[in-house]
C-alpha cells in the first residue's frame, strides 16, 4: 500500500529531485500532505481527487498520506499533481509500481484529467538529469523546451487516463525528440545601418559592447537614444550553446517561454519601465521568480529615463552588476539567479528634455535641472563606464553621412567579436572575463599605458579636472579601445578616446 515516484521542485533555476511517497492506510478517508508543500501543492488534493475520478478510476476511500522528500526542502509548483495522482493509483494497485521505476513525472492536472504545462520544466529536467534520471514523463506543452537536453528521453503526455492505460499495459512509449524551434526575440531589433549621422555615438556602443561596459546616453527627446540601444544586442557576439541553455532555463523558470516552449536564440533585450517595482526588477516574490535583470541575462538591460527610477531600485542593481547574479533571501529559502547583463541607460539633459537644444526652449528652472542631474550620481554611476551625448540629427546629416556610409551592425559585430576573443585569451582562467570587470589590481596589471599615454592622462587630469574615480574607468575603456584595434600597448590615442567617454 505504498508507492514512491520521482519528481522535482525548483530552487532558483536549479531543479531538485523530490521523492513523492504515497501511503494508503485503513482509517477515515483523508488526504494528508507533508514535506513543506506550498499552497499550490496543498490545493492539489481536490484537483487529483476529481482528475482520478474523471479518468475512469475510483478514488480510494482510505487515509492517504503523501510525503514529499527531502522533507526540509520547500516545494513549489503544480508539477506534483501528476506524480501524486500516479502514486495514489500505484499504492491502490491500479497500475504496476515497476513501471514507475527510474522515471520522473511532472505535470499539472485539470479536473477532467488533462495534463497541463508547468513552469520551469527545462530546469527541473536538467536537475533530474544531474541525478542520473534519463526518462521523464512531462506535459506535451513542455516537451519542446526539454528536448534541448540531448541525452534525455522525453515522454510527452496528454491526459492521466491515457498515461495510466499505457502504464497498466506495460507500454513504454517511444522517447520523443522534438525539434526545438527558437523563440523569436520579443522585439524585432533594429540594425545600426539604419542609424545615420550618429557615427560618434555608434562608436561608443561598439566600445561598450566589446568591453561589456555599462553605458549612459543623454540627449534630447527624438535624438534616437532608444533606437540605438535597441541595436545593441545585435552587435554582441552570438550566444554559445551553454549560454542559450542557461537563458532558456531562466525564461522557463519565469514562465516566459511563449506557446509550446522552444529556446531563446537571440540575446535578450529587456526594457522595464521606470515605475518598475524592485521585486519585478531584481526578482523575488513569496515564491521567488527571476526579475528583469535575470531575464536580461547574457543580453541587454535598458533603463530609459534613468533618473526617474526609484533610488532604491537603482541601488539594488549594484550587487548584480558586481557579482553577475542576484541572491534573494526569503523566510524559508535562499535562491540565486544569474544576472550577467549589459546595462544601457538613457536620460534627458533636464526634466523637460530640451536643455541645451538649439531650437526648443527648455522650460525647467535651474533648480529642477540641478536636482535632475543630482540623481545621476552616487554609487550606481560608479558602475557606468561610458557616457555619451547625442543630439537630434538634422536632415542634411541624415542624407549625407560621409563617404563610407553608415556602419552596419554586422560590421560592428565583427570587430566586437575580435575584441572579445582577445579578452577571452587574456583573461583565460580568471574570474574576470571582460575589461569592464577588471579589479583595481588587474587594471595595474593589464592596463599599463605607454609613457605618452601616461603623460596625456596626467595632463588631462589637471586640465579637465577629472576625479580620481574616473581614472580606473578611463584605463579600462582605453584597454577596450586598444583591443578593438588589436593592439597590446595602450597608447595615448586610446587614452584620448577613452577620456571622451568619461562619465564625469
Amino acid at each position, binding site marked *: 500500500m505504498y508507492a514512491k515516484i520521482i519528481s522535482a521542485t525548483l530552487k532558483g533555476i536549479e531543479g531538485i529531485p523530490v521523492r513523492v511517497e504515497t501511503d494508503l492506510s485503513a482509517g477515515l478517508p483523508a488526504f494528508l500532505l507533508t514535506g513543506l508543500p506550498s499552497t499550490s501543492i496543498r490545493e492539489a488534493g481536490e484537483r487529483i481527487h476529481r482528475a482520478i475520478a474523471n479518468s475512469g478510476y475510483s478514488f480510494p476511500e482510505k487515509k492517504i498520506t503523501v510525503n514529499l522528500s527531502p522533507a526540509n526542502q520547500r516545494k513549489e509548483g503544480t508539477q506534483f499533481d501528476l506524480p501524486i495522482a500516479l502514486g495514489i493509483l500505484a499504492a491502490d494497485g491500479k497500475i504496476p509500481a515497476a513501471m514507475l521505476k527510474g522515471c520522473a513525472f511532472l505535470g499539472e492536472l485539470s479536473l477532467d484529467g488533462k495534463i497541463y504545462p508547468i513552469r520551469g520544466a527545462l530546469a527541473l529536467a536538467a536537475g533530474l538529469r544531474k541525478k542520473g534520471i534519463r526518462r521523464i514523463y512531462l506535459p506535451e506543452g513542455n516537451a519542446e523546451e526539454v528536448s534541448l537536453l540531448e541525452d534525455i528521453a522525453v515522454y510527452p503526455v496528454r491526459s492521466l487516463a491515457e498515461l495510466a492505460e499505457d502504464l497498466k499495459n506495460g507500454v513504454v512509449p517511444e522517447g520523443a525528440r522534438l525539434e526545438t524551434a527558437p523563440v523569436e526575440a520579443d522585439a524585432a531589433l533594429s540594425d545600426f545601418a539604419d542609424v545615420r*549621422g*550618429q*557615427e*560618434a*555615438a*555608434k*562608436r561608443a556602443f561598439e566600445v561598450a559592447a566589446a568591453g561589456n561596459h555599462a553605458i549612459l546616453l*543623454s*540627449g534630447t527627446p527624438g535624438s534616437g537614444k532608444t533606437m540605438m540601444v535597441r541595436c545593441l544586442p545585435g552587435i554582441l557576439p552570438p550566444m554559445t550553446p551553454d549560454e542559450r541553455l542557461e537563458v532558456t532555463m531562466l525564461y522557463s523558470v519565469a514562465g516566459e517561454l511563449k506557446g509550446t516552449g522552444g529556446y531563446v536564440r537571440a540575446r535578450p533585450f529587456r526594457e522595464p519601465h521606470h515605475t518598475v517595482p524592485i521585486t519585478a526588477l531584481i526578482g523575488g516574490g513569496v515564491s521567488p521568480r527571476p526579475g528583469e535583470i535575470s531575464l536580461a541575462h547574457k543580453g541587454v538591460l535598458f533603463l530609459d529615463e534613468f533618473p526617474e527610477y526609484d533610488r532604491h531600485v537603482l541601488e539594488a542593481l549594484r550587487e548584480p552588476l558586481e557579482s553577475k547574479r542576484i541572491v534573494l533571501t526569503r523566510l524559508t529559502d535562499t535562491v540565486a539567479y544569474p544576472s550577467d547583463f549589459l546595462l544601457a541607460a538613457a536620460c534627458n*539633459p533636464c526634466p523637460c528634455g530640451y*536643455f*541645451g537644444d*538649439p*531650437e*526648443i*526652449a*527648455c522650460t*525647467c*528652472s*535651474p*533648480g529642477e*535641472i*540641478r536636482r535632475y542631474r543630482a540623481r545621476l550620481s552616487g554609487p550606481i554611476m560608479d558602475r557606468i563606464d561610458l557616457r*555619451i*551625448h*547625442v*543630439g537630434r*540629427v*538634422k536632415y542634411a*546629416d541624415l542624407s*549625407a*553621412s*560621409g*563617404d*563610407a556610409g553608415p556602419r552596419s551592425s554586422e560590421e560592428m559585430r565583427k570587430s566586437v567579436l575580435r575584441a572579445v576573443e582577445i579578452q577571452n585569451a587574456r583573461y583565460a582562467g580568471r574570474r574576470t572575463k571582460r575589461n569592464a570587470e577588471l579589479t583595481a589590481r588587474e587594471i595595474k596589471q593589464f592596463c599599463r599605458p605607454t609613457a605618452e599615454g601616461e603623460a*596625456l592622462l596626467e*595632463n*588631462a587630469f589637471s*586640465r*579637465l579636472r577629472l576625479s580620481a574615480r574616473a581614472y580606473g574607468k578611463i584605463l579600462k575603456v582605453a584597454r577596450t*579601445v586598444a583591443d*578593438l584595434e588589436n593592439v597590446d600597448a595602450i597608447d595615448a*590615442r*586610446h587614452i*584620448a*578616446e577613452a*577620456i*571622451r*567617454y568619461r562619465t564625469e
Partner: protein
Amino acid sequence: MRRTMLKYVTIRNGDAAYPTALASIPKPPAVLYVAGDPAVLKTACVAIVGTRKASPYGAWCAYELGKRAASYGITVVSGMASGIDAEAHRGALDGGGRTIAVLGSGVDVCYPESNRKLYERIPEKGAVISELEPGTHPLPMTFPARNRIISGLSGGVIVVEAALKSGSLITADHAVQQGREVLAVPGNLNQVFSYGCNKLIRDGAMILTSFDDILDLVGLEARDAVKEKRLTVKLNRDEARIYKILREEGELTVDALAVKTAMNPGDLAAVLTYMEIRGVVCSDYGRVFLTA
C-alpha cells in the same frame, strides 16, 4: 534657508564709503549691507549678467570675460545666480581679481544654496552686498529691484546669454535709464538664449567682438579695430582641419563633426581630447566649439 553668521557693515547713502556711481541713479538704495571690503565698491566695475541656464558656450564666455576683467584690474559685478552670473564671479576670482555679488536676499542669506562656496569665497576678494534687511528671504519681486544696483555700480553691463523675457534684459533696461553702456554678446540665430542678446543689439546695444571690449566700458583705453584671433597653439593636420571647420561653422555636434571631417569616430574622439586639453576647443553635452 540658512542664515549665515557673516560679518557685514552698513553703509548709508551719504556716507563717505557709499559708491558715487550708485548715488547718481534714480532711486538709489538708502542703505547697503556689505560683507567683505567696502572699498571695492568704489573701484572700476563692469557688470556681467545672463541666463541661469547657460549653454556650455555661454558659461565659457562668462568665465573668460570675468578672467579678462580681472587681468585688467576691473571689478566684476553680478547677481550670484546660477549659470552666467556664477561663471563670471568664478572667472574673476580665478583670474585673481575682485568681484561684487549683489543679492536679491538679505546679505546673510545665501541663495541659491548651490552657490554657497562662491558666496563664502567672494568676500575674501570683494564683497557680497544687499540693500535688503539681513535675514530677508529671496522673493520673485526682490530680484528686479536688485538688478538696478548691479547696473548702477558699473560703468557698463555685458549681457552674455539671455532669453527674450529675462532678468538680464531688465538689468539692461536699468543700465540704459542710468546712462550706462550695454554690451551684448552676439549669438547664434538658432539658439533660444541668443534672442535676448540679439534683440539688444538690434535696439542699439554695443556688440561684443572681443573680450578686450570690456575696456571700453570703463574708459580705460581706446580699442583697435576688430582683429582676427591668432592661434598660439601648434596644430597637426587633423587638428587644423577640425579647427578650420569650427571656425567656419561655429558650434557643432560631435556627430556632425564626424560627418564633416569624414574621420572615423574613434580617431575624432581622440583628436578632440587632445584639443580640449590644450584649450583649443570646449565640448559639453556632445557639442564642440572653439575656445582659442
